[in-house]
């Protein structure tokens, strides 16, 4: 299946070894979107590199930015003010919902249901409007700065987010009626692309794919960052680890993110939005690894600084790339038609896979 295939998200080439209709083995050829982000980082200052981070997982740019900024703040041993942390949490959770909506739309389209795509995009539009109002850009937002936020929350911020969360509840029910107990949807997804818990851990898979296989691991709970420790929310966990479980886990995650946003909206603490960080950042030599829970899985930043203005090395742990390794195990023994469903269910974004 060539790189410009209609159902591979972006430019992913999959070489399938077939026995008639069944897939025996598969091999993903990637690298079509490789831009050498990590090499570029080595001759950019810390602030200059921040916009590059958004271009990786262009579907969830805000959470990339959050990961990078918090990693550098850890390096500088600086703490973002509480107000900044809460606004960051709200924006990341909104971005998570938007990313899951895009996943649901394209996944359903691959399996044949035409309508959910337009419902999901209608909601995603609302979120992008809020992001645009806040930081001027819809997709590659560059919303955060090292040490806090650049812009104060616009005046109607609370009202917009609240209005969105209010009617999103009924919208999720809309998707569920369309898909969840639809016999054909279940037929196409149940028992397809099974990934057992041991395999998931062995492959180092993270995020909804890991939780669907029954492993209860979410960085927001395990190593809370930003303002996640102040809010109550559950972590949905699946049982068999097939496409249908991943679908349920992600739908539940959307609901939880909505709850987080609602809790966060009640009390956004007043105060400054930017910590005292100089114009020129010269972090002390040393290294740091900071991971956050991106919509696709654990997004980690390993930054080594040699005391100068530019980082010595920035290593990014992309969740999509690692989840993709489990693709071969999942696709074995299935029919060619299921390959499309499996690519959809891992929810990979090629920008992040190729970096």
């Amino acid at each position, binding site marked *: *299946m060539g790189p410009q295939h209609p159902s591979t998200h972006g430019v992913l080439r999959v070489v399938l070894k077939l026995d008639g209709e*069944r897939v025996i083995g598969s091999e993903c050829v990637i690298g079509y979107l490789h831009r050498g982000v990590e090499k570029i980082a080595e001759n950019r200052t810390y602030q200059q590199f921040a916009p590059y981070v958004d271009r990786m997982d262009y579907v969830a740019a805000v959470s990339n930015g959050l990961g990078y900024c918090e990693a550098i703040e850890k390096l500088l041993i600086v703490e973002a003010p509480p107000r900044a942390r809460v606004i960051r949490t709200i924006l990341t959770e909104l971005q998570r919902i938007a990313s899951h909506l895009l996943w649901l739309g394209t996944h359903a389209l691959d*399996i044949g249901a*035409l309508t959910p795509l337009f*419902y999901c995009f*209608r909601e995603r539009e609302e979120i992008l409007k809020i992001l645009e109002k806040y930081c001027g850009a819809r997709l590659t937002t560059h919303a955060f700065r090292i040490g806090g936020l650049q812009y104060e929350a616009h005046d109607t911020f609370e009202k917009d987010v609240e209005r969105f969360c209010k009617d999103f509840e009924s919208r999720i029910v809309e998707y569920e009626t369309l898909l969840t107990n639809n016999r*054909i949807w279940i037929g196409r997804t149940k028992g397809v692309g099974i990934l057992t818990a041991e395999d998931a851990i062995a492959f180092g898979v993270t995020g909804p794919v890991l939780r669907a296989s029954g492993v209860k691991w979410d960085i927001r709970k395990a190593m809370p960052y930003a303002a996640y420790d102040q809010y109550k929310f559950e972590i949905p966990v699946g049982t068999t680890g097939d496409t249908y479980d991943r679908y349920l886990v992600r739908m539940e995650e959307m609901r939880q993110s909505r709850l987080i946003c609602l809790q966060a909206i009640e009390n956004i603490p007043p105060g400054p939005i930017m910590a005292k960080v100089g114009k020129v950042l010269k972090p002390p030599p040393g290294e740091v690894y900071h991971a956050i829970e991106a919509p696709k899985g654990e997004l980690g930043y390993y930054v080594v600084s040699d005391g100068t203005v530019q980082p010595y090395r920035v290593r990014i742990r992309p969740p999509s790339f690692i989840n993709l390794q489990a693709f071969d195990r999942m696709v074995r023994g299935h029919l060619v038609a299921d390959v499309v469903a499996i690519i959809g269910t891992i929810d990979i974004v090629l920008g992040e896979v190729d970096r």
Partner: protein
Amino acid sequence: MQAAAQATLDFLKLYWAPLLCGVVIVAVLPLIVGYIVLVERKLMADMQARLGPMRVGPHGLLQPIADAVKLLIKEDIIPDDADKVVFWLAPVFSVGAALLAIAGLAFGPAFQIAQDLNIGLLFVVGISALGIFGIVLGGWASNSHYSLMGALRSSAQLVSYETAAGMALVCGLLFAGTLNIKSIVAAQVTQGVWFGFLAPVAFFTYLVASIAETNRAPFDLPEAESELVAGYMTEFSGFRWSLYFLAEYVNMIVVASVATTLFLGGWLRPFANVRWLNFLDLLPPLLMIGVAGYCVLRMPKQPTRVQQMFMLAVAGLCLVVALVLAAPVLLPFVKPSLKDAVAPFYAGIHGGFWFIFKVSVYIYFFMWLRFTIPRYRFDQLMRLGWHFLIPLSIINVLVVGAALIVGSYFNLQGWALLLATTPAAIVTLVAALVILSLDQKNQARQESTAATDFYAG
């Protein structure tokens, strides 16, 4: 020479009506198909919270003409080593089969091309079964591995669902007792109840089988399959592709009208012979007046002058149709002497209206399915066809036959016949559940064996 001229003259005198209908159908059908496509796109858009084609003409009403022109002038690529003759023949074959099937149909008591064809329904089903050649040869001629695989898949699907559709029709025909379309509808008048209620399971099976037969909705696997891209139609472009497109929609009309004739009482008004429900006759004209009113109301909101004019024209058209529909109903009240003169006229027009109304409801259901339900995988599709639909329809034929014998024993008629057929339907449904559970069990067994052997392999 004179004898030949005389022979052709009386030939024309004898058969001018069907010839005229034939020419009208073949000319008007592409236009109708164009507007069905427009309605489908509008409906899809409406269900997906968007507007659909709005650019060409007011509310996109001229979109089909734009599509037709585009398809005509688009360049007609023929793959280099495809064999030309078969490549040209395949779409012609499938359109020909679809249009020929239209000839057997009756769109109202007066409007039928092949007048008293006493194998009416069988003729329509048989000829529309020829469409398979168009698909198979099309796949073969375009000489690419993918389209050949797509063609084989879609024809395998067509062949297997034809048996199920055939069985469902047989069950419907048990009640009608004849194949001639006019007498089928007449039988539904004497019975007083539509066969769709007498044989609900047959109607359901036919509905599902006809969706699969026209390659639509959850079964539109061949052209939507991810790696076959457009199945057998990939290599065709421009006019040739539009022929296939036309054949698919004409097939949809044929299948819909077969279902309406047999299960939904053809051109009968609902509750045809219930005297006190006669006011239903006024329904068609009222409907048309409603549409006209809606157009007039929306007229001021149109942005440009020409669109307002267009809306007025549409409203006028609806009013004229309403008048034509109302005339035969109201005239007898005005002048009772006209009653008998108007009767055939009345039957023809109202019959035609009801028939077209039912066909469009049936097609609406097709479209509605297409937008909401995801697609079946190919093996699930074949399993549904072979393991579930065909046994169900065979059992249904047996059970309904038995019910008919019981019915005739107690000589139940019309609504009373329901006493015999509803238990029959229940028995068939129970049998269906048994088949399903059996299917689930051996499917699970199959799945486990399949899983083990590929690990071993």
